[in-house]
């Protein structure tokens, strides 16, 4: 059946693991797979840790939720993960030294995916550090000529994460109508 994925990226501590756990239908796993082919030159014990969760849609369809591994040396994985994604979620930890620069970095790094789909940006840990505020992120987006929702998000809150995903979906298609309950049942049994 359909295999689709939604990518979560952002710096370490931004809340990727937590956000995926907030909306996943199954307890999220952290895969510590041996990255065989790509790391032949590297030490054999090298592993790639990425977050994985899943949403079960009607008709055996799945939406896979992937969090990009944080370590810079695994960023070759990012392109592999991003290919075919329905959209991108960037989480930014406001409590890091230069969160605006972080956002600039991730927007550029995932430019191809963003240009062909859409991006939603969640600013986490604003309860721990209020600056920069959301308008500064919006200014940055404007400079970079990117139109995207930017919300304050607490990755531990399902509502926050869900609102950001909804905003991403409606950015992809503002005319989207949720399925009616009976449609849902029909497609489930189809």
């Amino acid at each position, binding site marked *: 059946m*359909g295999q*689709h994925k939604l990518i979560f990226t952002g710096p370490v501590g931004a809340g990727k693991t937590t956000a995926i756990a907030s*909306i996943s239908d199954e307890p999220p796993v952290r895969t510590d797979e041996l990255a065989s082919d790509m790391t032949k030159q590297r030490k054999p014990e090298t592993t790639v840790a990425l977050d994985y969760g899943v*949403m*079960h*849609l*009607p008709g055996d*369809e799945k*939406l896979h939720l992937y969090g990009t591994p944080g370590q810079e040396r695994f960023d070759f994985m990012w392109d592999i993960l991003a290919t075919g994604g*329905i959209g991108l979620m960037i989480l930014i930890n406001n409590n890091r030294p230069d969160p605006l620069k972080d956002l600039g970095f991730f927007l550029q790094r995932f430019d191809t995916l963003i*240009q*062909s*789909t*859409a991006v939603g940006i969640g600013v986490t840990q604003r309860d721990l550090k*209020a600056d920069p*505020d*959301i308008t500064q992120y*919006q200014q940055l*987006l*404007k400079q970079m000529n990117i*139109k*995207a*929702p*930017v*919300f*304050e*998000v607490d990755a531990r*809150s399902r*509502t*926050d994460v*869900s*609102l*950001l*995903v*909804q*905003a991403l*979906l*409606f*950015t*992809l*298609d*503002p*005319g*989207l*109508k*949720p*399925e009616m309950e009976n449609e*849902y049942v029909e*497609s489930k049994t189809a």
Partner: protein
Amino acid sequence: MSTEQTLKINIPGANTGLVNIVRAFVRQRYQLVENEQADVCIIDLDSHKADSMLASIREQFPVRPIIGLSLYDIDDDNIVHLKKPFRPDGLTQVLDQVKLDLDVPRIIVKDNNKGSLSKAASAVSDVKIGKQRAIAQNGIINRSKTEYYNPSDFLQGELIKAYKKSTGVGLNLRLEAWWNPIIIFPDIRKVWVDADDNQLQAYCRLPLKRFAKLQESTEKDVKLTPEPLLDMKKYAGSLQPMDAFLWKVAWWNAGGQLPVEISENDLIYLKHWPNITRYLCPDNVVQICAILHQGPVAARRIVDEIGFDAKEVFSLISAANSLGLIVKDEGKAPTVSVDVAEPSETVKQDTKKRKPKNTGLLRRILTHISRR
């Protein structure tokens, strides 16, 4: 009537002011209806027409309970007295009591002819439902015509002025326009308000002038005082972000209307997304924002084409506008189509990049993730 049923209220002879107050103060369980259908009447006993209205109600509906609003004590045991000025919980308490009394099973006296209800009994029965279709839930009448409000008649206007001053000079300001002061702390971009959302929402339905009257004060009572020495710690408990507070005040001030400066046919768009995770955010806000963010579109079109409740669309636009997020499009940009089935040719081009092939999948994800 059963406990689940709404209590139907009529306010005979009242000006829109009092009607708005009651609308503001009561919730789902109550409904404003026309005289014949009401379970209870609310009468402003201080109005000059009070005596004649009272007499006429008692004539027509001898057993119907009457709530009388007055600044003064009254000695009529058949009137439930609510003393002015009253607070929302005061009004709901009285209404709850009346509802409880009515819920007690009543002996219905049958007239001898054709088994119809007696005049008295029919006064408290729930017939004539058809006529009430025009009256929506929450006591707000479904308007077919777009209505407008002037933000400067409401708290919203004063709040925006106060925000500007306060952030301009970087000083804490106390705004007195209400029952309780609002204190603005521009450094941390927070406001202090000593009221919960229910109270706020209720008071927001009142234009400031009307509010001043209710408080028995004169209209000049909007005051701004610098408070440079306030100890912020004392207020920490009920601080809220300035933007989130203004958003909801504007939402409630609008009450389903558009601000006068935006006509329903103006092409408008959102400068950027509001920070909706921290704002008052009813169900359709995300989608309406996405539509307004995509490109210029008329408010009326969002209502007609997507079929959203006009009140929600208009309130959202009012709230976004209070934060300066609504831009009027003066140019000739094509309007954005919100019609998924058949986008117009121009729009197809305009949004080619974004027009996904996988609408079905997106819908299923949306359905899944919007569940609570």
